[in-house]
């Protein structure tokens, strides 16, 4: 549970995310989706309740949890006055990666920015900056991907890339994605959690839902 003043932003949410699973968190504005994600990402402390990330209990073992987490928010979380390469090299050092140069090259290549690696992020379009943010989030091969509206600002190539990452998580990795895009959420995720006013109103596997029917049900739930 997490309060902001008197308001309970997240309350009585019980989520268990297994390896290989992708969870889409849906809900209207102010439903508590981002707050929930930020608590899991160690960026906010819960006022009550327990969060465990890959065996590390928060907030006491936040350091261990952070090693396992890859976080991408609305913003790419890169320094605009550093080059793409300098940004990724910084994060490679912060995560203690071996062979940082090779890892950075591979990450830049993966998001199609190798040719622009010596340009500052300030010169990038919004979509390119967000792709750089995606490379940053994936650089240390996180076990848990936490994505907060990751498609915001992504160009078509970047969106395809992220779709591929989520579709091909593998058995070791899990993802939790906050999104407003209901159809994309249920298409990519194996499970969906719908929040309204901080509380869960639906949690079920997406295999039981088809797009149009779920959309209608979702509108009804969050109305």
């Amino acid at each position: 549970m997490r309060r902001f003043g008197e308001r309970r932003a997240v309350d009585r949410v019980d989520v268990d995310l297994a390896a290989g699973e992708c969870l889409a968190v849906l809900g209207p504005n102010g439903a508590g989706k981002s707050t929930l994600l930020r608590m899991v990402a160690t960026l906010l402390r819960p006022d009550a309740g327990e969060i465990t990330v890959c065996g590390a209990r928060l907030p006491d073992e936040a350091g261990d949890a952070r090693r396992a987490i890859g976080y991408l928010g609305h913003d790419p979380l890169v320094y605009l006055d550093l080059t793409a390469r300098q940004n990724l090299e910084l994060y490679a050092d912060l995560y203690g990666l071996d062979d940082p140069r090779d890892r950075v090259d591979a990450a830049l290549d993966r998001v199609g920015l190798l040719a622009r690696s010596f340009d500052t992020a300030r010169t990038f379009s919004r979509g390119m900056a967000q792709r750089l943010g995606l490379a940053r989030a994936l650089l240390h091969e996180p076990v848990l991907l936490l994505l907060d509206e990751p498609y915001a600002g992504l160009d078509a190539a970047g969106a395809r890339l992220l779709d591929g990452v989520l579709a091909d998580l593998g058995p070791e990795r899990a993802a939790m994605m906050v999104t407003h895009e209901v159809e994309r959420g249920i298409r990519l995720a194996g499970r969906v959690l719908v929040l309204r006013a901080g509380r869960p109103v639906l949690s079920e596997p997406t295999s039981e839902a088809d797009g149009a029917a779920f959309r209608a049900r979702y509108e009804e739930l969050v109305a």
Partner: protein
Amino acid sequence: MTPSWPRQLRALLLKDLRLELRTRDTVVAMLLFSVVAMMIFQFAVGSRGDDLTDVAGGILWATLALTAVLGVGRSWVPEREQRVLDGILVAPIPRLVLLASKVGAIYAYLLVVEVIAVPLTALFFIRNGQAADLLLVGVVCLVANLGIAVLGSLLACLALFARARELLLPVLFLPSMLPVVIAAAGAVHSVAGGTNDLAEYRGYLLFLGVYAVIFGLVAYATYDHVFDD
């Protein structure tokens, strides 16, 4: 895969210095401010031809204290303005390392300012100054900067999530820095004020060192909580 803190510290410090080299926002503003502040002090305390040697240390350290407020206030600006803070906070960086990286950056900015401000002080305010005195004043800077940087970094981190941080920071920082200003000005006066009292100078240096250690311990005791939302 456990990141080593020296590597993280080096990377964070290098990042701050790179950003500053590229934008030159903070140090240039600090340099200009320090020169203007010194001119104002000169007009305020004496007329042309007056011997200001006695107050030179005071002018220098009052200037540096006010200049430090600028540097400390801007220490988290790249993270806030470029919205990178979440990326840094979600990385597995011990909070003490984050704090130490800002100590290093603020220390470096102050050093650059002092490279200009100390010779200017000697030139305009100290009569019959010797080169050796300038070196001793340099040592005062090296020690005093440590206390200023540790205290400033701690307060800047504390104010990171505070509302009206631009107001909060100087209100907390300047009074806490008063002992440094008094001791550093005293140390400068003891070697450049004509008395050349090395015993007094050493006493002031010791005080500045103890001040830095005390705030270092305060930072060590509180670092885990200063980044709380």
